[in-house]
């Protein structure tokens, strides 16, 4: 029988382009914060899941082993999971199955990324994720695939760059209320459109920054939850799905794999009308168009409708469907796996009423977070309820 799983605490470091702390030290600070917030110590933890993205950023292969002491893994069942940018929601899914299976009562999930170690720019590490035979001889930049996907999305639904820029404006503004944010700012659509063109149609302010950071959260089983809190948030649905590696063989305008992951999570959470039943959402927003792309993938609106919702203010923090109230990757920062803090942890903080200045109004009870990664092919989705 599957056990019900609750989130009872979370923590994070600040997100910055470069932090002085090592990966281990960042993990320690985030983990300590999660434990303190739940009134627990490492002794209470049965199992530990570590999430971290490509080893090439840290320059340390077997990064999971390198980080384990900081993540509280000493002398415990410990494993690392990695689904590229999808890790920030997939690592807590892996934590969920540790508890749902009945294997452990308390699972600690820690995510870390230290992109600044790859110097002077982590793009040089991204160059190694491409297929060596057919893609790499063309000397690609990872920015290209986003630019190509954004262009295809704009073409399919006749979406303007102005409408897409509204997402960057919203998320960077939301991030002003986040105490850990790297790039919170009041900017305008014109600021986005006039910022440096990196790879058209992508301008500098369409993109989230490389960041250092760590995040942690504590998952417990229904059997022990009352020992620790009277304000749990329950994980009610999980889903994940991946598309073919042959990314040049599919129409990039719609993320089928996100829709598959969402359907899997919604079925488990008994959600049959996501637009009405979900109160707050944290879609993955490494680029502004990705929030729109993912809202459609999450079946929260029709294909091509997300820009309209954005223009009408529906996705503002006080709108009918608040999207990225944290400030997202665009505003808070993008330490790849550690974006768990602004996706999964944020939905926990929102649903438990702890989000402070970022709190969406109206006592939200059902939230969804989603992450996306690998070579434009991976989606992970979690539904939570309070």
């Amino acid at each position, binding site marked *: 029988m599957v056990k019900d799983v609750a989130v009872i605490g979370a923590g994070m470091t600040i997100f910055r382009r*470069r932090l002085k702390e090592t990966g281990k030290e960042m993990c320690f600070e985030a983990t300590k914060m999660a434990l303190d917030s739940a009134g627990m110590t490492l002794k209470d933890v049965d199992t530990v899941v570590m999430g971290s993205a490509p080893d090439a950023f840290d320059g340390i292969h077997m990064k999971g082993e390198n980080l384990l002491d900081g993540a509280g893994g000493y002398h415990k069942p410990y494993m690392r999971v990695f689904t590229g940018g999808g890790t920030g929601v997939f690592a807590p899914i892996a934590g969920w199955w540790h508890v749902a299976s009945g294997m452990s009562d308390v699972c600690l999930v820690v995510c870390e990324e230290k992109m600044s170690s790859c110097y002077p720019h982590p*793009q040089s590490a991204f160059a190694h994720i491409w297929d*060596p035979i057919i893609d790499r001889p063309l000397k*690609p930049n990872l920015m290209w695939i986003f630019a190509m996907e954004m262009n295809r999305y704009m073409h399919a639904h006749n979406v303007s760059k102005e409408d897409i820029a509204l997402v960057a404006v919203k998320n960077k503004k939301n991030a002003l209320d986040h105490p850990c944010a790297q790039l919170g700012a009041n900017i305008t659509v014109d600021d986005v459109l006039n910022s440096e063109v990196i790879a*058209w149609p992508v301008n500098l302010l369409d993109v989230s920054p490389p960041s250092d950071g760590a995040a942690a959260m504590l998952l417990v089983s229904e059997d022990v939850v009352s020992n620790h809190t009277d304000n749990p948030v329950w994980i009610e649905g999980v889903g994940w799905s991946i598309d073919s590696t042959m990314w*040049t063989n599919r129409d990039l305008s719609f993320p089928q794999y996100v829709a598959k992951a969402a359907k899997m999570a919604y079925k488990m959470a008994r959600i049959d009308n996501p637009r009405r039943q979900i109160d707050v959402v944290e879609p993955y927003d490494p680029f502004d168009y990705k929030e729109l792309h993912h809202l459609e993938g999450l079946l929260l609106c029709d294909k091509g409708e997300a820009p309209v919702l954005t223009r009408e203010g529906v996705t503002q923090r006080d709108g009918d469907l608040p999207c990225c109230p944290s400030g997202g990757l665009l505003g808070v920062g993008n330490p790849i796996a550690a974006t768990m803090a602004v996706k999964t942890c944020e939905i926990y903080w929102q649903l438990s009423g702890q989000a402070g200045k970022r709190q969406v109004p109206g006592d939200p009870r059902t939230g969804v977070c989603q992450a996306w990664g690998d070579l434009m092919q991976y989606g992970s989705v979690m539904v939570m309820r309070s």
Partner: protein
Amino acid sequence: MTENIKKFYGEELSRKQISDGKITIVEHSPKVKYAWSCGEAMSRFLNELKEGKLIGRKCNKCNRILFPPRMFCEQCFKATNEWVYIKDTGRIMTYSISYVDTHARRIKKPILVGVIAMDGASKNMGIMHYFDEVKSDKIKIDMRVKAVWKRKEEREGAITDIKYFKPLGE
């Protein structure tokens, strides 16, 4: 963050602090080399490129002509059945005008790059490649394009045996 948390950890460093030697760092540049065996499908594909030809593989169950070729169909999950030559013309599915190189260094002359769905392969079966002989304000999705090949003696069995794709000008 919970509202109750007053202090968030982390100390920010600037790039200048590193270049000025103001902080303690250690450095290492890994030097490793790889040689990838290209396998059955891609070895044939690359050798055909030397001849100025593009080749795909057909799956007799879903009847798709897969390009780039592979020895198995990932959807039917069975071995593919036959080699099929496809054309060196196609249609632009999407593109970008890039002002950054592979190391995120800024470049003056932009790279035009995109995905081309090839004629003779199944729907949406494309490859990534460059475009040229087209101005960046004239390139369009759905534009018909044709491969521009290196001269035969310059070809080496690589995707770069095609220099770029240019508008067909139909």
